[in-house]
């Protein structure tokens, strides 16, 4: 099921598609990110002794991220290729620093992100890392590079849930270690949260009646609903989650550098192309306006 989504992503990127019209699932062995990488910018001289210079010397960018986040950062076990919005941005950032898209993914989890950055195991974290003031005390955030929102999905035909407050008193399924948990608690404190590790598990649990609603990032839910006709989205996203690129705390020079790069790819339209090739394959319409760099509290 997930692979079909992936193939759609891949196919659309390859086709260099414009706009977000839905496409029939197909198969395409290569990824169109290569075309984007080819026209992506490369930074001019890097200041000696800076983090960027050290990365260039090493020859690869160490990225903390996921292997199992559809549309964002997902590895195809067959080819080993990493696709998705976060994954593609990682490649573009690597190109900017190194001149070639050489990244190495270090699997991070919500428990390990801060230590991985603090002890230098990874250079950046690109993992739907929501910028919050608490987190900004331990890590630096470049961006926000994407603004997401939590939305509600139910099994088709479920009545009585039309807005977040309606979740009160219901069993609500949410992904473990996702911002959904806090979002549900804030919107409906009396909702009982049932959490599972991955999106497919959450969907199975919803289908099996372990809960009446499923709260998850809207883009993911749209992708799920495209595969599963029994899944119905209810209303619009009810939160705003600004995703940032996690960097080592206090490394202002690197943060400035990454922010400059983000502004550059936003202006040149590269950001929008990456969106079209990933999230845009399931969300209809034009790319949203990219978030203003530094606009989130903590960035």
């Amino acid at each position, binding site marked *: 099921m997930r692979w079909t989504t992936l193939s759609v992503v891949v196919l659309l990127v390859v086709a260099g598609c414009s706009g977000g019209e839905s496409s029939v699932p197909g198969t395409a062995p290569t990824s169109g990110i290569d075309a984007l990488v080819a026209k992506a910018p490369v930074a001019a001289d890097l200041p000696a002794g800076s983090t960027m210079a050290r990365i260039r010397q090493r020859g690869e960018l160490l990225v903390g991220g996921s292997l199992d986040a559809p549309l964002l950062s997902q590895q195809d076990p067959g080819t080993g290729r990493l696709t998705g919005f976060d994954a593609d941005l990682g490649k573009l950032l690597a190109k900017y620093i190194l001149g070639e898209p050489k990244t190495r993914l270090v699997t991070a989890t919500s428990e390990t992100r801060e230590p991985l950055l603090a002890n230098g195991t990874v250079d950046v974290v690109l993992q739907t890392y929501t910028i919050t003031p608490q987190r900004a*005390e331990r890590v630096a955030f470049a961006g926000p590079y994407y603004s997401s929102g939590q939305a509600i999905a139910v099994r088709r035909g479920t009545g009585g849930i039309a807005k977040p407050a309606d979740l009160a008193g219901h069993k609500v399924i949410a992904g473990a270690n996702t911002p959904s948990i806090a979002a549900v608690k804030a919107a409906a404190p009396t909702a009982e949260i049932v959490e599972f590790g991955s999106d497919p598990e959450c969907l199975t649990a919803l289908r099996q009646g372990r809960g009446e609603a499923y709260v998850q990032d809207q883009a993911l839910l749209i992708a799920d609903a495209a595969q599963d006709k029994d899944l119905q989205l209810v209303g619009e996203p009810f939160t705003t989650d600004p995703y940032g690129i996690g960097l080592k705390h206090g490394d202002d020079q690197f943060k400035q550098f990454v922010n400059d790069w983000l502004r550059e790819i936003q202006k040149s339209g590269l950001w929008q192309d990456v969106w079209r090739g990933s999230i845009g394959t399931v969300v209809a319409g034009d790319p949203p306006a990219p978030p203003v760099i530094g606009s989130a509290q903590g960035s």
Partner: protein
Amino acid sequence: MSHLPALVDGFLTTLALVALSFTGAFALGLVVVVLRIGPLGVLRAVGTGYVETFQNIPLLVWLVLFVFGLPEVGVRFPLFTTAVVVISLYEAAYVAEALRSGVNTVAQGQGEAARALGLTFGQTLRHVVVPQAARRVVQPLGNIGIALTMNTSLAAVAGVVELTASANRVNLVEALPIPIFVGAGLCYALLAAGIGGLAGLLERRLAT
């Protein structure tokens, strides 16, 4: 520290998981070991089959199978119940083996002598074998209890918000993984020490 209630809730859930699962595992383990050492070949085979099945498939696999597989055939228990049942079934295999090793420490001649004196299989167990075996299995059972305590953290996968899951939740907000998980680790250590102490106490009691 506004998260203390959440962590305490998680700790209590872990405690409940440990207590219920160990009780279940012990009861079931007793049945299995009686099957395994019994005189009937068919029942011995059933007991052996049980132990081999549960010892040779990881607990995580059992949890996923029970949580996501059973509802597919129309059986749906609450998640907490599912976790208790699965951990009990799994640990019962280990309990049974520990009990069997205890029984095996009682020289075979004693059992034969008891039967020769006219005691039934049940009487032989009750009056001759079990009193001697009991004190020898206390420590192994304590170890199984500790292992079971650590294994309850897998229930987080089944959607049960026990200590590990609640530590995860708190960390998601606070982004302080090291102190939070060191704290959770200390709670587990405390539980393990409690179980170890209890086993020691019980062993001394049974020795007199």
